[in-house]
């Protein structure tokens, strides 16, 4: 079969988009947009990596920092949010064994997020609006450096992303609690207790006091518990980001209308505490909880067995949620105005609990896999192990920098950007998501055969080696004093930057291989057909046999 034929029609007939249900389509739409945004983010990352090796004439300072500003917006919201929300839009009803609450709302969600990410990107690309994702007050409203129109476009984009996020949250909670047509009324209380994981804690307590378990069969499965809990953090985070967005918008509109306002009315330290409380609910809240839930689900699906220590896992997820509300101060350890006790308790001690909660998730997942030996080294298993390895590296790196002594010399260095959050995102989170993509692939595409296993293997090794390597070389540069968000134009850390750049290139190549494999598998016809309206008038998740 010719290359061109396969490209158009897919591998062995490719994807028959007419046979996809509305739920399958909405899931695939979100995931595909997320994968495309990942590519844009990776390309931006490579632009910055190249500029760090040798300054590019096409990137002046304002352009460089606008790329740095939109890079995480595109990567986190445009890519990760869309892939995660798409996957959970399918998984929650799948695990709850009932239809999604609203397919229309799910469609609105991915469109709002995708369009919002595009707007924010345009705010950087066209107007060079560059306050970075941290938005430290009063930088976002410093109109001596930025065009207020650029700020307006950027912030409205973020607002759309957050509104889309609220739509996702509503859909997930509604799917858990609603009673489908023709079904006996589902009582709210056991669902809520189970979704919060309180039944797991009660089971442990009842066992300790010699009683029968509180709930032998929990009303909500463990992965749904994780999704439900993570979504609580997603909600709180959306509220905080929206609030800050409204504040910035007020100043932007004031400037555009000629009524410039005094930015000193907002206390920079108080704002920083509020903003980091919300923003950290992504990094130390929903990501860790969603990832733990995904590992549990993947381990159960790969082994076909129940999870090891289910009740502990449920209880640990609740602990993780609570911990995530009290750790934001680790971002302010270098702020001398921040109270020392807040630094010690929130910044160090409570943060250290993430080592425990994430460590528990790793242990439970690995033991569950080991209990089903021998397993086949499938794509989903190897990506799952890669994801676990990513967090085994990135979480301790975060705990190390969340120390009052070490933070003094690690804060804002490449250590934070490299060994901590790029390894966490590119290896830990992304490889976990790829594992989910590979395992859900047959269900979502009605059994489309993967075009090339060799490309899938290259995707795995490229992502793993590229992600860990880039993080490692950035970390080594940090040990020698390399800051993040700083331009070094005299070749100060060039050797490390070249090595990190090669690893970055490997990451980009891995994404290209994955995208090519995906397109060749489903075919361009199938790919475009995903975005057409479903011909199946059904609320079922997959076509009925």
């Amino acid at each position, binding site marked *: 079969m010719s290359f061109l034929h396969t490209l158009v029609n897919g591998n062995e007939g490719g994807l028959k988009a007419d046979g996809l249900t509305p739920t399958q389509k909405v899931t695939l739409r979100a995931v595909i947009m997320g994968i495309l945004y990942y590519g844009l983010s990776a390309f931006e990352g490579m632009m910055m990596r190249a500029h760090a090796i040798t300054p590019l004439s096409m990137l002046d300072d304002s352009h460089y920092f606008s790329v740095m500003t939109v890079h995480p917006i595109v990567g986190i919201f445009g890519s990760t949010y869309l892939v995660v929300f798409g996957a959970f839009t399918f998984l929650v009803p799948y695990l709850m064994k009932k239809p999604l609450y609203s397919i229309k709302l799910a469609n609105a969600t991915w469109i709002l997020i995708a369009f919002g990410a595009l707007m924010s990107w345009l705010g950087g690309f066209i107007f060079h609006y560059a306050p970075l994702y941290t938005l430290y007050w009063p*930088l976002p409203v410093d109109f001596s450096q930025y065009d207020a129109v650029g700020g307006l476009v950027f912030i409205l984009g973020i607002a759309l992303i957050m509104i889309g996020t609220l739509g996702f949250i509503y859909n997930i909670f509604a799917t858990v609690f609603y009673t489908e047509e023709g079904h006996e009324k589902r009582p709210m209380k056991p669902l809520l207790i189970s979704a919060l994981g309180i039944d797991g804690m009660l089971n442990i307590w009842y066992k300790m006091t010699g009683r029968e378990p509180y709930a032998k069969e929990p009303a909500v499965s463990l992965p749904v518990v994780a999704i439900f809990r993570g979504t609580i953090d997603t909600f709180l985070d959306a509220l905080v980001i929206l609030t800050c967005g409204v504040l910035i918008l007020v100043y932007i509109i004031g400037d555009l209308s000629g009524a410039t306002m005094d930015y000193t009315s907002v206390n920079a*330290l108080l704002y920083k505490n509020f903003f980091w409380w919300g923003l950290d609910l992504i990094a130390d809240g929903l990501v860790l909880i969603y990832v733990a839930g995904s590992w549990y689900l993947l381990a159960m699906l790969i082994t076909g067995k129940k999870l090891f220590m289910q009740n502990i896992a449920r209880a640990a997820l609740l602990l993780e949620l609570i911990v995530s509300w009290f750790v934001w101060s680790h971002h302010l350890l270098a702020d001398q105005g921040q109270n020392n006790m807040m630094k010690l308790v929130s910044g160090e001690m409570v943060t*250290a609990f993430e*080592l425990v909660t994430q460590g528990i998730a790793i242990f439970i997942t690995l033991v569950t896999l080991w*209990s089903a*030996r021998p397993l086949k080294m499938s794509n989903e298993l190897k990506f799952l192990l890669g994801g676990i390895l990513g967090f085994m590296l990135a979480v301790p790196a975060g705990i*190390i920098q969340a120390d*009052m002594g070490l933070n*003094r010399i690690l804060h804002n260095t490449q250590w934070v950007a490299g060994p901590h959050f790029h390894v966490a995102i590119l290896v830990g989170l992304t490889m976990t998501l790829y594992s989910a993509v590979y395992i859900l692939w047959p269900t979502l595409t009605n059994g489309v055969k993967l075009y090339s296993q060799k490309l899938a293997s290259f995707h795995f090794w490229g992502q793993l080696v590229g992600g860990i390597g880039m993080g490692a070389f950035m970390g080594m540069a940090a*040990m020698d004093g390399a800051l993040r968000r700083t331009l070094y134009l005299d070749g100060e850390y060039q050797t490390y930057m070249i090595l990190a750049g090669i690893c970055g290139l490997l990451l980009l190549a891995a994404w290209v291989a994955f995208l090519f494999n995906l397109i060749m598998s489903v075919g361009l016809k199938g790919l475009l057909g995903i975005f057409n309206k479903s011909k199946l008038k059904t609320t079922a998740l997959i076509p009925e046999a």
Partner: protein
Amino acid sequence: MTDSVDVLQMLKLVYTLYTLSVISLIGWFAFGVVNPKGKPRIVKASTFYTYVGVLITVGVAIHIVTFNKIPWVEIDFKRDSLKPAQVVNITIEKHKFKLPSPKIELKCNEYILFDVVSKDLTYGFGIFRQNNSMVTQMQVLPGSRNDLMWKFGKNGVYHLRSTEYSGPKGAKMYIKDVFEVKGCDEDDKYSQKRGNL
């Protein structure tokens, strides 16, 4: 006194060893879990609880060790009650450092207080050696007290750089050879203007 260079070198060694161990562990697990001769094994609950105990111990121990071994933590905690031998007042405005003098001489083995004020944006204040490695830093926020107390134990000449992004105009907030520490018994080998750089 322990220097930040010593701490960073130790961290580099420890984290590299940790990274290699973890990669080896997952590699071993990957081979083991697909080994056709491998048999399913149930892990005892006691093993799990021991593991959790180890995690808690490690999480707490990191902070206890650094609190006792890294000298600047205690100084930072007590800086309100310690009397500085020298106070260096610096103002930052419109992406420019306003220094009390172009070159600032710092006393050796004395408490030096850097009191930095921002008149507009959030900046950073960082002291760097001649080889670009970091000595110390803090964030500088408008409307807050930004005071960093430090004790230098080695002779050297140091650069000043903003360690926080403050917009494209702040990309080059870097002044070479601002601080000079004199009067110590030992030289900072990474921060000599002429010598072993």
